[in-house]
């Protein structure tokens, strides 16, 4: 694996982005319990906007270049254009039927092959998770496949040089301060910054920008095609169902608020909460 921090002066940051259905648009068909994504508009995963902003800030400090990579169908090139409009310099879309049906292991493997193909990088930034998959696994799995250190839940970058990074990482009830040698990967929380909206002129520019598209055969010299997509995925979704049996709710509607309060205290007493 060749990272270029030593032989090249330019500081290279890679951002992993994904196109997701807009959360508010995903509906459940009440009759079938099935997910209806037909009305859902595709947007850049909201967590990735924070990752892009981190990369932009680092570029301001250290110079260099920000490359964003996404894996998805061809229409996901709009997410890469969005990333360019937000300040990224180069966009690469990994798109091939062979990449389809990938779980987090196959996705991270494919992304790591693409990163190796790019060749030179110092830092990889990704969002904490995606709103659709909601696993947060792809980042650390990419780090393992590239054999570089990583930190998850990064809520602040305390210091960065060409060779190391100090971050504050969120824990359940506090934080840790970690120093990572570069190259490294971080996944960042929504609290790390407030991404600004892209400027209109940058949006227009991004519309005409070139998005490189790499297929499975473009990565076949670096990786094992068998490890892409569904064939490379150890997990299988065997069923998707309605989340739960509906609770039988006892509704208390009539009477004065005083009576209701008494009723509520009776319930709390019966349950042993008072």
């Amino acid at each position: 694996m060749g990272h270029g921090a030593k032989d090249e002066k330019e500081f290279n940051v890679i951002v992993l982005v994904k196109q997701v259905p807009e959360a508010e648009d995903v509906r459940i068909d009440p009759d079938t319990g099935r997910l209806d994504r037909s009305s859902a508009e595709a947007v850049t995963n909201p967590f990735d906007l924070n990752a892009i902003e981190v990369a932009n800030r680092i570029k301001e400090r250290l110079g260099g270049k920000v490359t964003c990579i996404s894996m998805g169908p061809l229409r996901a090139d709009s997410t890469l254009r969005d990333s360019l409009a937000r300040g990224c310099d180069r966009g690469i879309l990994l798109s091939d039927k062979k990449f389809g049906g990938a779980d987090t292991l196959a996705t991270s493997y494919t992304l790591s092959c693409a990163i190796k193909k790019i060749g030179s990088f110092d830092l990889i930034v990704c969002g904490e998770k995606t709103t659709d998959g909601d696993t947060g696994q792809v980042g650390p799995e990419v780090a393992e496949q590239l054999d570089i250190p990583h930190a998850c839940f990064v809520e602040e970058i305390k210091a960065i040089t060409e060779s190391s990074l100090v971050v504050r990482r969120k824990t359940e009830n506090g934080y840790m301060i970690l120093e990572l040698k570069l190259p490294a990967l971080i996944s960042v929380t929504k609290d790390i910054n407030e991404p600004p909206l892209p400027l209109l002129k940058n949006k227009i520019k991004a519309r005409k920008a070139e998005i490189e598209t790499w297929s499975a055969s473009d990565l076949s010299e670096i990786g094992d095609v068998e490890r892409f997509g569904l064939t490379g995925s150890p997990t299988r979704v065997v069923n998707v169902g309605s989340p739960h049996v509906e609770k039988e709710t006892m509704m208390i509607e009539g009477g004065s608020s005083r009576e209701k309060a008494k009723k509520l205290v009776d319930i709390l007493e019966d349950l042993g909460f008072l």
Partner: protein
Amino acid sequence: MSSSEYEGVMVFAQQKDGKVHPVTYELLGKGREMADKIGESLFCVLLGSGMEEVDELIYHGADRVFLYDDPSLQEFNVLHYKKCIVDLVEEEKPKIFLLGATTIGRSLGPRVAAALRTGLTADCTSLDVDEEGNLIQIRPAFSGSVMATIKTPKSRPQMATVRYRVMEEAKRDTSRRGEAIKKRARIEDTRIRVLERKEFEGEGSIVDADIIVSGGRGLKKAEDLRIIREVADLLKGAVGASRPIVDDRWIGRQHQVGLSGNTVRPKLYIACGISGSVQHLAGMRNSNFIIAINKDPSAPIFKEAHYGFVEDLYELLPELIAEIKRRRGMKTACITERSMRI
């Protein structure tokens, strides 16, 4: 590598300052149940420095505890932890490997899974095993609006992170016997250094609270949160909040209940003036007991509640506070009377 070589259920025992995280005992509970079902053993891996709770892991169901006791493992360093665990999995070949879906488990699990080239299912809320030892993993997907069942048919171990406070803790039985096996950590990696760890003082995380009283959009202004706080204080509970009032900075994000905040499973959850977005419901619907107070009878929160009070929180909560105080006062009065008699 045929999958039949793999045997037993392994649990990652997470610790901090030598104290085992309670999710570990939940994993041991489920792990014991599954190990018994397939007639195999349950073991766990504990990494740290100067740990004292090894016996507790055995009392909670572990047949064997693999112990890595080394100063380099005192704090969570994902590269050090990964190295020990990957080595152990390659030696012991567990069929199933479970970790808590904590900020540690969610960083460590994927790293281990990728190193072992196996599947990992994130944030499971339910697990079972079939007679052949195939792990049946259930997790919420799409903001909790559906439940996905996931299997790892061929790769071993089958790995899952499991949400905290979803499974029952293992029963403690001090007559249980097991084996503690000391392992040596071989660590040379210096690419990550833990410089500092800090825990916030005072308020515990709402994730650990047994009782949560939450407020939402039904509140008219930030100051009115004091009504919610007063109810919470009376019940010795924590204050929760739905996302809109957190976004408006009425209260800190650590109080937020919902998918983008905290997933909670208290014994009692009282939702006041919360209509119940999909995200909020996914973050609290596994609470043991749910009471919803909302003036709109069609609010989605009522579908998840055991008791639904259709009333304006500004009417009901002051009455509730008064009623609790009144009954407490009566109780105190009774006790005083009785003690005076004695």
